[in-house]
């Protein structure tokens, strides 16, 4: 079963977190380690980090189909910072990974306990049998 784990982060200031170097390094090391763990467990399908929201554009098709872009969105409180797609044996395992990610260290090493949205990825049709 495949799941996507979406890490939504609160918008802070200009986007880039302003933490002490030690804390920032601990956070980055933690994330790299999670990635390594999931790879070694044979569970990682893909993982990507997204650019900061100041790079984001909202695009709509204009009348003739040309893209109309809209700029930065100061009003949104949360943004998608990154995601993992994992292939695991049970939903409980996906939740356990999400909880690990959620507790990534923040300033002062305190766990951030970020909300991680976990959703099943749609698959092929189920078998007709039992």
């Amino acid at each position, binding site marked *: 079963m495949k799941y996507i784990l979406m890490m939504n982060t609160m918008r802070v200031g200009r986007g880039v977190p302003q933490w002490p170097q030690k804390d920032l390094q601990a956070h980055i090391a933690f994330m790299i380690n999670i990635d390594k763990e999931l*790879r070694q*467990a044979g569970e990682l*399908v*893909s993982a990507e980090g997204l650019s900061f929201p100041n790079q984001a554009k909202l695009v709509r098709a204009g009348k003739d189909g040309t893209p109309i872009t809209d700029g930065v969105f100061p009003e949104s409180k949360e943004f998608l910072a990154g995601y993992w797609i994992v292939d695991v*044996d049970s939903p409980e395992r996906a939740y356990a990974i999400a909880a690990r990610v959620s507790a990534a260290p923040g300033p002062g090493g305190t766990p951030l306990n970020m909300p991680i949205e976990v959703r099943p990825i749609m698959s*092929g*049709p189920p*078998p007709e*049998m*039992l």
Partner: protein
Amino acid sequence: MTKPWDSTSEHLLRELAPQVLGSIVRRFCDFSLAEDAVQEAMIAAFTQWPQEGVPDNPRGWLIQVASRRVTDQVRSEIARRERETAVAREVDITAPSVEIESDVDSDDTLILLFMCCHPALTSSSAIALTLRAVGGLTTAEIANAFLVPEATMAQRISRAKQSIKASGVPFRLLSSQERAVRLPAVLHVLYLIFNEGYASSIGPHLQRLDLAREAIRLTRCAKALLPDDAEVAGLLALMLLTDARRAARTGPDEELIPLDKQDRTLWDRAEISEGIGLLTAALSKASVGLYQLQAAVAAVHDEAARTEDTDWPQVLALYELLKRVSPGPMVTLNHAIAAAMVHGPAKGLELLRALDTDARLAGHYRLDAVRAHLLEMVGDYESAIMHYRIAAGRTTSIPEQNYLMTQAARLDDKRSGPDNTTAAPIP
């Protein structure tokens, strides 16, 4: 002397893979090392044989190449250790002599199958290892079949091998008693491989390796090794009788077509008659198990030339047996459908109520989908639409979701249309 490479050669190679692996494991007593070596030998054969022809003794060829790889591996490991310790020692690294065996030791394949489907492994690990060690597939092929990166699948297989090593499973033939205890786990793994293949046989993944066919091939192999086991035969029959409907199961836009709407002329007659033959032989033996009964249900459907010819009382009787042999919420659910077809939808709805409190089925889309179907049959369109939509919101399958949403939309149109006075036929 060689034979030219032809369409049967690839099949031959896959057939030989577990025998070669078995032989190497017995010789070197290291499953993990042997497994890697056999994979390399397989790859060598796949590259060389199409050009140079299939050797006279293909099994001997593979055993020799794989043995050489193991020996090389052991040598370089020893060299590495010697470099590290800087101690020059005389080490006897002579590999056991590789005499080319001409007899086919099918017991090795059986031992491997039981080893790979070991209950200590998670089902995804057991599936991956079985496909590689017994099925002779490459890691890349397996990764592609499950739509995960090759590195991820390689890790999964390597972990599975570690688990087997750690569990200390000896490489030996099980007693018939041990085998009886372990067989359900083996059949379950084969069943899961088939389901995975059957489920993914539509949609954007047509280029993927055909796991349903692989599962049938592996189960055929298990059937040949355990010819007297009625459940192995039952599982093979179930796969064939289900796979027979594959071409009719989807429409031109890859939409799901339910059993009662399928063009039955598209069903594979050869698979159906083979399945029925296997099942008939299996049922004449003493024990009746889960897979034989499921196969029997599939056979009743496959034998009906038209939907209305379906022998529903027979299906109902089979589900009553299944409820005794292997009780579970999915069996109850299917039993309710059969009861509705025999005794009317009200009876089916009544039986479904017993499942409302079943925690194993809580929030499962199938319960809502079946309820919607039966509500439509009694003519309660409004409730039927609601349950079709609940089911659509709960399934994790896109084709199933499209199907359920379409059912709700169809009823909604019908309800607001001019001819909404006619009673709903069986959908």
